[in-house]
Each structure stands twice: as structure tokens, then as C-alpha cells.
């Protein structure tokens, strides 16, 4: 029986993981297996953890403003490892104007503050491969 596995990761240097934990908990309650890797991960660490855990989804949270650099980097590293079908989503304090470029870079959806956790669950259910 297949189970959706999600890596919840905090790339970059900001130390705020309340949001990531709330999302991790909501995904757990939706029946997913959530691998939580904690704070201050490099893009390389996130991509390698995604490979070892064979996740279906990588969900990243950034509150520092480093998303234009870090999100696309994670996407590229994951694709380089041959994981073409992993759904990659992002969240955090992200200006609306940055979102089109992130989507262009391969982030399937961006969830900003105030998003009900149910929306994230629904998005994953609808788009996971």
C-alpha cells in the first residue's frame, strides 16, 4: 500500500520553524509520513535526504528572504539526482511578486502566511505522483 512521504525542510539560516512544525503536524494528521529534518539545511542536504527517504513531496519553508536563491537550487539538485516526479512546494514569508519566478524555476506552488493547512493537504493530494 503506497503512502505519501513528505520531506519538510528548512533551508537557509533563519531559525523560525514554528510554521514548518505546524505544517508537518497537519500533514501527519492527513495520513502522510512526514520526514522532518530540522533547521538550517543546505540545499545539498535537502536533496540527499529526499533521495534517501524516497519522498513524493519536498515542502520547504523560508522566512529569511533567501527563497529566490535556495528554492531553485533545491529543485535543480533533486532533478539532477534523477528524481523527476517529486512534487516540490514552498512556503513562508514570500512576496507575491517573487512567486511567478519560483514557479518558473519548478516550485509547484507557494503558500504564504495565512494559508489554511487544509489547502496544502489538498494541493498535495491533487498533485502528488
Amino acid at each position: 500500500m503506497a503512502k505519501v512521504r513528505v520531506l519538510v525542510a528548512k533551508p537557509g539560516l533563519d531559525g523560525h520553524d514554528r510554521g514548518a512544525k505546524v505544517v508537518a503536524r497537519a500533514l501527519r494528521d492527513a495520513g502522510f509520513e512526514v520526514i522532518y529534518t530540522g533547521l538550517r539545511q543546505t540545499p545539498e542536504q535537502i536533496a540527499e535526504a529526499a533521495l534517501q527517504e524516497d519522498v513524493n513531496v519536498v515542502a520547504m519553508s523560508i522566512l529569511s528572504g533567501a527563497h529566490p536563491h535556495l528554492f531553485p537550487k533545491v529543485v535543480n539538485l533533486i532533478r539532477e539526482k534523477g528524481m523527476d516526479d517529486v512534487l516540490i512546494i514552498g512556503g513562508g514569508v514570500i512576496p507575491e511578486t517573487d512567486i511567478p519566478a519560483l514557479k518558473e524555476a519548478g516550485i509547484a506552488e507557494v503558500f504564504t502566511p495565512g494559508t489554511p493547512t487544509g489547502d496544502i493537504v489538498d494541493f498535495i493530494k491533487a498533485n502528488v505522483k
Partner: protein
Amino acid sequence: MDIVEELLKGNRLALSRAITAIENEYDEAMDIMKKLYPHTGHAFVLGITGPPGAGKSTLTDKLARAYRAQGKTVGIIAIDPTSPFTGGAILGDRIRMNGLTMDEGVFIRSMGTRGSLGGLSHKTADAVKAMDAFGKDIIFVETVGVGQSEVDIVKAADTTMVVLIPGMGDDIQAIKAGILEIGDVFTINKADHDGADKLVREMNMMLDLDGLMTDWRPPIQKVIASQNEGITETIENIEKHFKYISENGILTKRRTERSKNEMLDVLHSNIGSYITNKLVETGKMDEYVEQIKARETDPYTVVSNVMKDMLK
């Protein structure tokens, strides 16, 4: 991608996909296991168990680094509980092992228990075999945080380490049956906390009273894993135990027992699902359930009849 061929060549994504196939019981899983099996039997399997918050993951991280320094390759399977209500899980053991992620000689996989109650998941043993076939020298199996009776780890591991911490109860806890009986090696973590020496004394007393003890008296080592204290001594204890069981034929006996259990597990699960599927396909399942519910028959008679019919 040919998973087996790529896995045997050392492709980490193939190993990862193989474990997924095993865990999710995909159709190809049985075939993968058949092909990997001849390549297994080389790894040393170390079980690490103990109560929640004892520091099993931190200790695993430190021990793995020490083995890496010896040039050995390491596989880690870390198990956390699956919710019985939603089927979801938070697998958080990697947080303590992030420093190992970029070491190509280490492969860490988190697993949810998915309904299993013995401290492992049903598929842990097969995931160990996949890592063994991949060529890992040492495979750590870290159980969920256990209470008193989750002792499945002894069936999966060559050496079992029980991690305890001070302040969990008085000496009556130490003479109860359960996880304290399965330790080949004991580690008292967080030994800088109050009560560590008292716990060592109580554990020693428990061992003094053990009438079934063989020549191997499980060593008790005080450790502060977060500060890397006591790690070298712990590795020595593990290696002494491995040497002891290798030289006394105990390892062979344990592995023979494991082979038997493996075969019986596959036998039970295959026969069980074969019969269940037949009952569902033929519609007999609902029929029997209704009859049992109405007390027209009983589960024992039904099963006797089903067995007579199907296993001729």
C-alpha cells in the same frame, strides 16, 4: 531503471526505491527480495532500543561517525511511530543525524511502524537486507521509543544495545521482564544527570540476579552522547560482544533462527493473503461473517472448513 542491478552497482536512488517497494508491498517487491537475497548475510546488524527521549538517535549519530572513522560503511534504519488513527507519522530521527547526510558512506532511511507493535515495522528486516546487499558493513536499526515489551529488535539484530537514562523509576523496574532482558550491551545515556550511578548499581544488581546468564555479562557504560563521551568505550563493548557471539557459535544460532523466522513470516503472510483473497473473490467472506455474527457458526469451525477446502 533495473532496481536490483543498479542497487548492486551502488546506486543510492535504486536502494531507496527498493526500500519503498518493500515497504509499500509493491508487486515487484518479492522479486527484488529474491534477487537481493544471495547478496545478503555480510553486514553486522546493531539494534538500538530504549525509551523515548533516551538519546537513541544522538547515540546512533555518534556511533556511526566512529565506525566511519574506521573506514566502515554504515546504513541506518530509524523507526518512529505511525498514528493508529490517521496512518500518518512524523519521522524525526534524521534531525539528530544531519551531519551524516552528505557522507556518501552513510545511508539513512526513516520508517513508520505502520501498525506493527513490536518496536519495528513489519518490513524492517527486508529493508535491512536491501542495505546489506547494497554492501553496507554495519546496519543500525533504531527502534521506536519503547516501553517494556517491544522486543522484536532481538530477532532482527546481531547485537542489541539498550539505552537507558537516569530518573525513570526505582529498582523494581530493573527486575521486570521485557526490554531489560534483551540487552547484550547497556548504555546509560545522559550520565551527567542525577541518578546515573544509582541506575548503574541497580542494573548491576539486576544482572547479578540473572540466573540464566551465560558467559557474557552485558557491560554497562555511562555515556553523554551529545558530548561524545563514552562513545569509544561503547564501540569496544559492541565489538567485544560481536567477537563473543562469533566465537561461541551464538551468532550462527541467531542467524539460523532468523532464517527460520524469515521463512515462516513469508509463509504465514502469503498463505494468509492467498486465503483471504480467495474468500473475498468468491464472496464467502461476507457470508461467513454474517453466519458468525448470527451465532449460526463460529470462527473456529469456519477456519477448519476453509483449511480443509483450500489446503488439500
